[in-house]
């Protein structure tokens, strides 16, 4: 009996094994390895010994790191509210059973499946000076063209626009799914309760989907802190680092300046920042809901 039980438990564990192997190899081990690396003097050829918190000290004393932190925070603080707000707006607008709204849902979601290369290529066509769509438009109107990708301020803005366009599908679909979970009789009860459209939205819809809104916000915070591809391909972090986010800073440090140890230390700091931001968001909205 006991042997049979043990055998059964063993076969149960076997089912979990493939995932556990992948989890250990691709998540747990790199996480530990990253921490280990961040305390080593290391380049792309190898490790040269333990140096304690030296890498962290150097990162924290690097003005470029703090510039990247500021850029990233600004980017997250602007794109995440826009993504949640616009996602909510689209979900509300498309929450009906018509063919037109089904087509539009597909259209808005389709950008999500594109790779970052395609996305940046499309938006370069829009923003690039000279032959870009906006540039042509500005010239036709007789306005002075703006160097969207090469002007301080505009460059991060342009990256933000491309990012919102790329990432909007997921918030929209998640919020749409939440909207469709709201029982229709709540709205009927509210109609009998003389609730205006605004009261229905603010007192029924929003509270009913608040869980999903928090989820969407946390997902987007975690994702947008990891901004990399768009910034590298559209502006290469320029001009003068004004659109260089943390991940691009890490990439430069580790793979262009060959300082893998310092790059790993910056990665760990980014990890802590994301964790703190997500927890803060979660905590704040939880409190607000109570």
């Amino acid at each position, binding site marked *: 009996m006991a042997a049979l039980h043990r055998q059964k438990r063993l076969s149960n564990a076997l089912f979990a094994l493939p995932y556990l192997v992948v989890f250990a190899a691709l998540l747990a081990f790199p996480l530990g390895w990253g921490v280990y690396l961040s305390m080593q003097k290391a380049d792309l050829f190898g490790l040269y010994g333990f140096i304690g918190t030296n890498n962290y000290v150097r990162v924290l004393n690097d003005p470029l790191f703090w510039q990247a932190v500021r850029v990233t925070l600004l980017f997250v603080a602007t794109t995440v509210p826009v993504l949640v707000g616009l996602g909510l707006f689209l979900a509300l607008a498309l929450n009906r059973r018509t063919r037109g709204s089904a087509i539009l849902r597909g259209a808005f979601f389709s950008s999500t499946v594109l790779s970052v290369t395609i996305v940046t290529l499309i938006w370069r066509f829009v923003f690039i000076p000279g032959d870009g769509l906006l540039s042509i438009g500005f010239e036709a109107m007789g306005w002075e063209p703006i160097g969207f990708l090469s002007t301080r301020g505009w460059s991060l803005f342009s990256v933000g626009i491309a990012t919102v366009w790329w990432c909007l599908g997921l918030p929209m679909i998640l919020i749409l799914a939440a909207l469709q979970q709201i029982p229709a009789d*709540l709205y009927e*009860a509210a*109609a*009998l*309760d*003389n*609730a205006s459209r605004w009261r229905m939205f603010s007192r029924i819809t929003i*509270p*009913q989907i*608040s869980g999903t809104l928090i989820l969407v916000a946390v997902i987007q915070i975690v994702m947008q802190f990891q901004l990399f591809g768009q910034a590298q391909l559209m502006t290469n972090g320029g001009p003068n680092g004004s659109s260089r986010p943390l991940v691009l800073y890490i990439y430069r440090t580790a793979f262009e300046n060959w300082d893998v140890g310092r790059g790993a230390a910056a990665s760990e700091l980014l990890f802590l920042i994301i964790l703190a931001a997500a927890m803060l968001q979660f905590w704040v909205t939880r409190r607000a809901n109570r």
Partner: protein
Amino acid sequence: MSAEIDIRNLTKRYGGLTVLDDISLSIAAGEFVVFLGPSGCGKSTLLRMIAGLEDVDAGEIHLGGDRIDGLAPGKRGVAMVFQSYALYPHMSVRQNMAFGLENVGISKDEIERRCMDAAKVLEIDHLLDRKPQMLSGGQRQRVAIGRAIVKEPKAFLFDEPLSNLDAALRGRTRLELAQLHQRLGATMVFVTHDQIEAMTLADRIVIMHDKKIEQIGAPMEVYQRPATRFVAEFVGSPAMSILPAASVSAGTKGASIEVDGVGTIDSAIPLPEGFNADGASVGIRAEDTRPSDTGLPLTVQVVERLGDRTLLYGRLPNGSDLVAQDLGRTTVQAGDEVRIAVDPSAVHLFDGTGRAFHAPEEA
């Protein structure tokens, strides 16, 4: 506060499908009316049209003399209790009750007073700060009723509000609803497919079937003098037994009904002139039968002992099923053959179209 409801020539279609066809009905102020019928008969649709949750395709609805079918649901002066209760899950009991009052700009003090009054009547005053998910089914039910009461509506609409409760609670809530009606004296319209709810609660029952009203009447009237064969079979438990009539002729006291292979029932029903016996049938309720030495021969198939009485489900020689009633301590067993006497003054005669005929009421 309570007002009469007047429904005139109401029709409802979904695309090409007609679900209510030319319905007219008057409900007096303070009356408790139950819409009773099988699933899909349109009773809930009719209620939702009064509430304003369904559009009216033709006809008019008046409440307290005012035409309301063009008004938004909240402007009609009705309150509704939903089958699912439809409580706002993120609001406390107090907020659930107050929401409708806040929307029309009633003062805070007045809202608090009404909520407390309703909560006391419904014995939920200790639950006011809880959210719906912390309440039992019965408590949610009360909150849903409370939400209706605080609005002080001209009419209450109930859409199968008891169907999510367990049997014991359903019985108790039924009683409480009846008391509430007496206390408030409000016009109440109640939809159900449960005939016991209909019989116990209603001043008048509206029996609906196949897009139409089959009969409107007081509970005992509907039970004892059903207007149609459908009503006869639908109301009452166990269901009325229906036997095919081979011929109907004038007897000494009334119609003499010949049932094929079974015998003749000499009823007290005055035979209407020009009665067409084609497809006619006779209906017998179990309580109008008793075992005797003479009568219809019944082969008992199932014996259902209810304690105070016993129901005998059996088959007659012509193949028709019949339910008969016997004493609680009967010794009849399944497989026995018994003879069943029928009270001739209590049988019902139906013509081929389903129209019913009854013996005159005893003075």
